[in-house]
């Protein structure tokens, strides 16, 4: 878990994907306490992702697709496959991009890292901490729930209006509505718990 606290800070989407991993079990009266209680279970999740950037001035969203592998032990492998190929790796060392010369560590991703910290509060079940920054609203049940985060701080309010996270057995959809009218939708339609890393994945996470 503590490995996760460091890793998940790195990016919003990484943390959201963590939700997908841990939000597995079904419960009846579904609240944040229970959601967080379920977060510590599986060790590995794989699946495809589809990211859509909806811009006001474009009729079609900017869409990208790929595969992700989330390992509780090693971190997140994010493999963008179309329209271009690019691999990312997120672990305690930070965000790295794969280049022809091998993995290249990215300089501190200021705001991206900050955004994910908020989700960290969910992961740790720190409702009080999260409630300081966001209005939280959890609706539905464990099979189909939605968590809405509305920013309280002035700085955050100037960046996004609301963040919706939806899931069933796993997180399926994360949507960020930006103040300037654009929004980003991340779909994780077919995430599956896995058992072990492949040789290539193990190699990608490196020593």
């Amino acid at each position, binding site marked *: 878990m503590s490995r996760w606290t460091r890793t998940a800070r790195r990016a919003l989407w990484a943390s959201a994907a963590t939700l997908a991993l841990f939000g597995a079990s079904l419960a009846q009266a579904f609240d944040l306490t229970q959601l967080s209680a379920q977060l510590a279970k599986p060790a590995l999740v794989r699946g495809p992702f589809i990211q859509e950037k909806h811009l*006001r001035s474009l009729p079609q969203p*900017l*869409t990208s697709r790929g595969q992700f592998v989330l390992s509780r032990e090693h971190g997140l492998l994010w493999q*963008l496959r179309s329209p271009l190929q*690019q691999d990312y790796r997120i672990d305690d060392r930070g965000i790295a991009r794969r280049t022809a010369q091998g993995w290249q560590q990215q300089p*501190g991703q200021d705001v*991206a890292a900050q*955004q994910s910290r908020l989700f960290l509060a969910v992961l740790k079940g720190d409702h009080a901490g999260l409630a300081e920054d966001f209005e939280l609203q959890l609706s539905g049940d464990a099979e189909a729930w939605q968590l809405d985060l509305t920013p309280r701080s002035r*700085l955050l309010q100037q*960046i996004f209006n609301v963040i919706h996270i939806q899931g069933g057995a796993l997180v399926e959809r994360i949507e960020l509505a930006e103040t300037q009218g654009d929004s980003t939708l991340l779909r994780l339609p077919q995430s599956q718990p896995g058992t072990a890393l492949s040789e290539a994945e193990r190699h990608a996470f490196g020593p």
Partner: protein
Amino acid sequence: MPLALERPAMQRLLPRLFLALLLALLALSAWQWRAGPPLQASMLALLPQGAGDELVQQAEQRMQEPLNRELLILVGHAEREQAIALVQRLGQQWAESARFEQVQWNLQADLAALRQQLRASRLALMPRADRQLLIEQPDSFIQQRAAQLFDTFAGFSLLPIEQDWLGLGARAQQALNPHQRVQTDLASGALLVEDQGLTWALLRARIQGDSFDLQAPPAIAAQVASARTLVTAEGGQLLAASGLLYAAAGQAKASREISWIGGTAILGILLLLLLSYRRLRVLVSLLPIGVALLAGCAACVLVFGQINALTLVLGASLIGVAADYPQHYLSKSWGGVRDQGNWHSWPVLAATLPGLSLSLGTNLIGYLALGFTPFPVLTQIAVFSAAGLIAAYLCAVCLLPAWLDGLQLQPAPGLLRLSEKLLAARARLLARTGNWKLLAVLLLFCAAGLLQLQTQNDLRQWLGAEPQLLDDAQRIAELTGQQPTSQFFLVRAADEQQLLQRQAALSVQLDGAVADGTLLGYRALSQLVAPASQLQPLREALQDLPQHWQPLLAAGIPEAALNTELAQLLNSDQPRLEQALAGPLGEAWRPLWLGHSAAGVAGIVSLQGLNDTAALHGIASGLDGVQLVDRLGELNSLFSATQLSAAQLKLLSCAAIVLLLCLPFGFGGALRIVCLPLLAALTALACLGWLGQPLTLFSLFGLLLISAIGVDYAILMRENIGGQAVSLLGTLLAGLTSWLSFGLLLLSQTPAIANFGLAISLGLFFCFLLSPWATPTRNTTAANEARSPL
């Protein structure tokens, strides 16, 4: 004059005159202190003005202002939330305090205003490397932008994509925040640095007024101390850096040292007087000390408007000299022991007055010589001491005899016997070795010592900063990546465009220094507004961009949108410098702009984390209008240069003293009286070498004073009133009182002052040892004993 002193009318008139003067002095002082003590705490204020012109001084002031007014705090805690909560608590507490003009612990950015400025000045803000990429490799520029559009982890861009299709704004935004270490917490806005499991939250405060306000530094230091207690109690750590804290530490140290060095000196002198003369009333002879300090302060405030704390500390040593004057006649009471005669104040004064007046003259010459150095601190000390010495002399001559009139001193006979024994031992030694052999040995000792002597001149001696403050400042520099340096470049030009061009040319050189590691970073106005000459090639490259933007079209971006943005970029006027500075993005650059003057415009390029000062000199030399301002280096070389002029001053003051002493003693006698203290100073210098202590500017000034004070003892011995043993005893007492105060300066924690104290202590010791040689040969001694007033 001696005759006049015998007259009762004169004996009544003099004390009255003096008391009237004293009353006037008291009134003047009361008026000067009406609005609190006119004390100045900043040690730096005592450093000489830089050699530069008005603009250089304005720039120096601009660069130093944050040092004197700003406070930087880092609150560290293992729990991120705790660090934020603590810094928030401190920030709110301090914001309510009247001490601070501005307290900032979080980013209260108005993003709308930031976005607007970023959008309007994207072109001018583009960093050089990005401009180069666009001009030389447009394909790669476009490919990178396309990748960024799909990058899940690209981070947050201020401008929405549709206002920044080509990504110029995103690149400019990256360049605006060069300190990657400090991050903004999006929820609270707190400014955070993560390091080795700790989260540090930044707090910046600016005080009302400045650090020259004497009350401010201790109040700020107290506030930091209580904040530290609070943070520590919550399991956190606090680091603080500010020029104010150095000032507070210096002030506390100075007042501590004034009270204990001054207090101990007075106590020591008090005991010495009581044990020597064994009469309580003799303590009135301490009065000249008080009068001297009062007159010194009043004169300084009169001349400079203020008196610096360092002047007070060094001036406190005046106690020793001021206490010497009454010794001239009090010590003659031992003559009475031997002759069974009585000691009467006025006649003894009449007999010793010529020597006393000569002492004042030589002391004044020595102290005033200090005034001709380019160091404001020494000028202040010269004024302080000259005024103090004159006041002490007047007190000793006009008032004390009246108050001591009719007093029967009971001088301790043991002391006289000691003095006689010392003289006998000297005689035995001389009988065995002779003068010349002894002198040869002494000179040999001096030569060997001088060979080992090392000079050292460094501003850090002057400050003697507290190690904890230095540690904190260094930690903060490491954590925030901000390491401001005192060196900077001043760039002058005819107009704004030329200034930006010159700064841009300098930036190219500085980029080289950054690349090879001699420099961590820099800030130039041309980063905020690129000169027109650099925008032109950029616009040309933009015009050709449609040939290269296929990857963006492939990603689904309509060509019309790209064309609109391109047209906008090509047609928009980039803001002028003053406009850009006024916007929210310009905040960090504002202090760098010195504005318009008759000669044109000027701006600063500030530097971060400098590792090699020498490399900078080469950079400035080839560029027009660029000047490296290196105050620290300038001061250190000034220290060295002043050593030479101090030595010349010493010789000059000696020549002046010889001239003065020619009148009563003839040329031969005068030369002998002056050579003895010089020899003593030389021996003290050699001792510094033997002790492995460096010769600094301050030890040299100590020795300069010795040449004046030592002459005093030589005169006492030369006059030889009451016999050699009595005179030597007078010298011993005078020397002991001086030594008590100067010797104690040796224990000061400020290296500059301690160094001064050591040199002067050694000098005084050798002055005493050598003083018997000032006494003329036997036959004249007899004549002088006949001159005894008793």
